[in-house]
């Protein structure tokens, strides 16, 4: 058994499918699958992926909002500065300028369109 040849073939297949065009892939899939069944599974998968992505986003949003809320209550400067900066950058968020009046839902509204991973990283590195 040649590990070297197997590895070359394995790499070649990997690189082929990484960039293969749609027509080629459609032909190859049709040779092996019941396409009606496959399309049904794919639709179900896309739905689950979207649901999971929304769930992940909501959890990140909740986590960040809770951290900001706590920072406002305790008067921790750096998270407050981050939140003020987000509000300052977006004029449509001007109505949220009084931080001590903000509910968790308000904070979620302020940060929902931001890069939540970035915001959470900033919050964690500032703590």
């Amino acid at each position, binding site marked *: 058994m040649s590990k070297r040849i197997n590895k070359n073939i394995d790499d070649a297949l990997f690189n082929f499918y990484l960039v293969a065009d749609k027509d080629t892939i459609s032909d190859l899939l049709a040779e092996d699958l019941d396409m009606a069944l496959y399309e049904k599974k794919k639709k179900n998968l896309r739905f*689950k992926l979207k649901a999971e992505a929304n769930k992940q986003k909501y959890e990140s949003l909740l986590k960040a909002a809770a951290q900001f809320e706590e920072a406002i209550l305790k008067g921790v400067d750096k998270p407050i500065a981050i939140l003020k900066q987000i509000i300052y950058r977006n004029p449509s968020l001007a109505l949220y300028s009084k931080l001590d009046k903000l509910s968790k839902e308000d904070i979620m509204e302020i940060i929902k369109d931001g*890069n939540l991973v970035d915001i959470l990283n900033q919050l964690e590195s500032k703590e």
Partner: protein
Amino acid sequence: MTLDEALISVDMDDIIDRMTAYAISYFKYTGIKQLNGLEPVDFVADVLMKVIAGVRDWQNANCSFEEFLFGSLRSHLYNFNKGNKHVFVDDEPEVSDNNRDYEFEDQKNMVLAQLVELGADNCEIDVFKCWLDNMYKPAEIAEQLNVDVSTINNAKKRLVRKLQNLRTKIPDIL
């Protein structure tokens, strides 16, 4: 780029198709027929759900989103392969570099002969030789063989189909 942005920026339908085709091809090439009741697309689903849930962390990876997805699938397939003991044999006898080169040339010639028997034309054989020299990019191969990229891509499509059956034809070599 965040995961959200990456998900929006890619054609997820196309990626699922390519990943599924890769999984099918991998199982055919390795000869794995028992998938424990799963289908190739289920392996793709498992990987994608883990990436989205952050179990497989793309944010800290040093590659494009698509490369990360394919790399994760490859790793998932290897692990399944290991679990089913279809792994490539690790206990090859120790041989000198000269003998190893000689052995490789010998095996390479047998594989090439088998490809010819399966109907591979000169262009497919040349592309396969490039792969054995670790050259995989169509543009590089086209330059090496002095033909256009579309010729290489067409040869690759034909070759991939033949490769899927190759291992079962010469199990002692591959």
